[in-house]
């Protein structure tokens, strides 16, 4: 299946004919649009793209794509995608999941697909709440969050999705947000091109059950102080005038205020450095406490072979060294004939 197109495709060509049915104002619309844009940017033939999802608001995503799609069962999209990729490494496989689907019921499958480094792009829509089932806490809900299942406030400790993905062995870890389209598009594009399991956490606003959960990072007035946009090779700067910087003292990150020039000790982002990436994933302080939260590609290791590559290597080697004759297989080593 050659990756050439007779005529250039536009984002619209990646849309299906189904009416999109998320709530008005849902962050999912922006993500859908940017995914379609990125696929058009990369000119990937529609027939070679598969979207696989679990259950939840975000998991309706495949129905709105004009590609191949499989809307699976709750939490199991990574397992379905793994089986597909092992027999069809030629396909571009995307997994669409949410904080409940991917981190609660499907947590086991998520960590294992990352550990194995199957070549897929995983988009985790994090809205810190269960939407489709009407507003219960999710594994990323914050302590104190009041929901129908926690009427007196949640006392559960939330997951930090990027730290979890990194610890599970993801070779690409990024965070982005639904309300910064340019950033969303650039991160999705990087993720799509990554060879291996790419994990992208997307802060996604749920206007119905958890409105404004991420406004500290997404809105004009608070974003500069709370969101740190990391870029490979660039110093870690933030603040309204980008006057604040991160420095590392040993393994301890500190915030410094710059006077004029950028001093040499400022932390320059190296997305290939796993130790520094580990520290970046841990920056989860609440907004207003002084430490910003990183957005962008936190870690990327394009060198680790994918699971399919390793399997295919074994197939090729063993097929050369061993017989592939079915009759011989059926006979086995010890057989005899009765005339």
């Amino acid at each position: 299946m050659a990756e050439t197109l007779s005529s250039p495709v536009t984002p619209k060509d990646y849309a299906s004919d189904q009416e999109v049915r998320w709530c008005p104002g849902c962050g999912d619309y922006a993500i859908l649009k940017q995914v379609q844009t990125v696929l058009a940017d990369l000119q990937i033939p529609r027939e070679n793209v598969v979207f696989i999802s679990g259950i939840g608001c975000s998991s309706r995503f495949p129905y709105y794509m004009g590609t191949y799609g499989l809307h699976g069962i709750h939490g199991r999209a990574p397992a379905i995608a793994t089986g597909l990729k092992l027999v069809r490494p030629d396909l571009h496989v995307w997994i669409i999941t949410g904080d409940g689907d991917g981190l609660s019921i499907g947590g086991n499958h998520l960590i294992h697909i990352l550990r194995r480094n199957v070549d897929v792009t995983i988009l985790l829509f994090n809205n810190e709440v269960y939407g489709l089932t009407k507003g219960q806490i999710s594994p990323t809900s914050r302590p104190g969050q009041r929901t129908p299942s926690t009427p007196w406030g949640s006392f559960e400790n939330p997951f930090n999705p990027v730290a979890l993905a990194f610890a599970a062995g993801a070779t690409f870890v990024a965070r982005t947000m639904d309300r910064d389209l340019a950033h969303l598009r650039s991160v999705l594009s990087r993720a799509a091109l990554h060879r291996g399991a790419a994990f992208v956490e997307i802060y996604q606003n749920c206007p119905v059950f958890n409105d404004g959960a991420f406004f500290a990072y997404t809105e004009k007035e608070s974003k500069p102080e709370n969101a740190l946009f990391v870029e490979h090779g660039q110093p870690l700067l933030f603040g309204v005038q980008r006057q604040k910087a991160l420095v590392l003292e040993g393994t301890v990150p500190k915030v410094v205020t710059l006077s004029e020039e950028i001093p040499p000790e400022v932390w320059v982002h190296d997305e290939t450095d796993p130790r520094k990436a580990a520290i970046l994933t841990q920056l989860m302080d609440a907004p207003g406490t002084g430490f910003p939260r990183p957005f962008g590609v936190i870690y990327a290791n394009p060198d680790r072979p994918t699971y399919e590559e390793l399997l295919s290597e074994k197939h090729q080697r063993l097929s050369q060294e061993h017989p592939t004759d079915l009759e011989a297989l059926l006979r086995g080593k010890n057989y005899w004939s009765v005339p």
Partner: protein
Amino acid sequence: MSTQRVVVPDVVIVFAGDSGDGMQLSGMQFAHVSAFRGNDIATFPNYPAEIRAPQGTLAGVSSFQLHFGSFEVLTPGDTCDVLVAMNAAALKTHLHLLKRGGLLILNEAGFDRRYLRLAGYSENPLTDGSLSGYQLIVLNLPQLVGAALADTGLSVREKERMKNMFVLGLLAWLFDRPLEVLEQMVTAKFSARHPELAAANLRLLRAGYHFGETSELLTPRYEIPQAPLPPGTYRSISGNEALVLGFVTAARKAGLKLFYAGYPITPASEVLHQMSTLLPYEVYPFQAEDEIAALCAAIGAAFGGHLGVTATSGPGFSLMSEALGLAVALELPVVVCDIQRAGPSTGMPTKPEQADLLQALYGRHGEAPIPVIAAATPADCFQAAYEAARIALHYMTPVILLSDAFLANGTDLWRIPDPETLPPITPPFATEQHKHNGTFYPYWRNEHGVRPWAIPGMSGFEHRIGGLEKEHITGNVSYDPANHEHMVRLRAAKIERIAHEIPLQTVTSGDLEGDLLLVSWGSTYGAVASAVQECRRQGLSVSHIHLRYLNPLPRNLGELLRNFRRILVPELNSGHLTQLLRARYLVDAHPYSKIQGLPLTISELVELIQATLRHG
């Protein structure tokens, strides 16, 4: 003195000892050499779930039962002619199987004070006269083995671990098995990595054989003539091996990759192991993180246009229930093998049972009919796997294949089929004909009710499927009430229609009508068939029907059942098939239940048949 030679039609040998005594290996090798010698065989390995169970204890006994003969051997036998007991616990747990006057081969070293205490003997049975009703051969194995390996430099412990080879050699002499075949097997097993162990094992094998020749044992030497086998190429095979070969052959015939996903579980792990060695045969093995992932991955592979297969046992099968519902909704070809074991929960993991039948038939949410077929013998697992794959691929449906611990580990003589003679497998791949005005409709069914299989990479066939109810023909999400009922009925009709293609049920043995009919399914085939044959020889009016297809049932089954005055259904469960037959056909079927983690015996069935007909 010349040894007396006696010709017998068949022999049952039980090898019993500690888990580490090599009883399974000796048994397998003797089974193989017997099959090679031209006898039909059936075996029953019976071992504890623990890898190294406490030495010398009753719970730690591992045994291997082998039946070989000059006729069609259908079961491992109810009782044995020869019992090899390596210690007191092995004797205590298996003596009840030995016929009066049978041959008892004992390892004297396994009857010291410690072994007697662990086995709960207050008196030593070697000396208290309690074994006087048997032909006794007591071997001082440490001495015999030590003498044979005196100049080898092997440790006492190493020598101790090989003692089974001496016994194997002795049995080879007693039952006239070709020593050179055993020698080849021993050489093949050890020589690559441990040439010194191969040499020592061969020496012991020969020493045992010569011991038989020279020691003037007070027992005749037995000859078991060859079974009248149809011409062909033969090998011995276990149920799990046959299962693997059936799937590999089916995928090859269909021109597809075979994706196999499994999670380790007794007694299905062997399938994962075997599949993992078959990469050159276009097998894609995958050890999943759990059984849910195993079936989901198989579904993913099927979406990608290949055959997805998984095998598990009861607990894992339960975990797969939800994904089975998805496979029904998606209408994709996957096969789930449930190698049943005694449950519920962990139960008795190495022991056979048939108590997952109702789960296989009904254990899902929603209206989710799935074809269910069962293997009858270890060798039949090949045909069952091939047929399961064929149905899955022809009808775009998940299929459940039922096996059990008895079939999985038991071995059979197998006449190797010519793959050319197997029925073709042609999946319903989508073509331009499945489009209307340029649009592809993923649920536009053919005359068999089967939807087309369009796979990613096919341009112009892009479509989305999922667990949400779909609109007939278009496959779009639909909450329309009438459409839902229609789709439920279409899915059910597709499965029911398979009954028009599978063979009509035949009466396995006996007349088409009579006083009594026994209906069986799965691994009880051998025992039921043997018992019915024996009773018919006694002139009793009894027939036997053995079912391969449990869903859909053969079209003519009800008609056949109504020709008998009484119906008995022997099962290793509390009466699952009985319930099904009563509900489906309104016949007065009665269960015969055995739920002990053990197979049915021929004699208990013979007694059952006799008693039933007596009380008419």
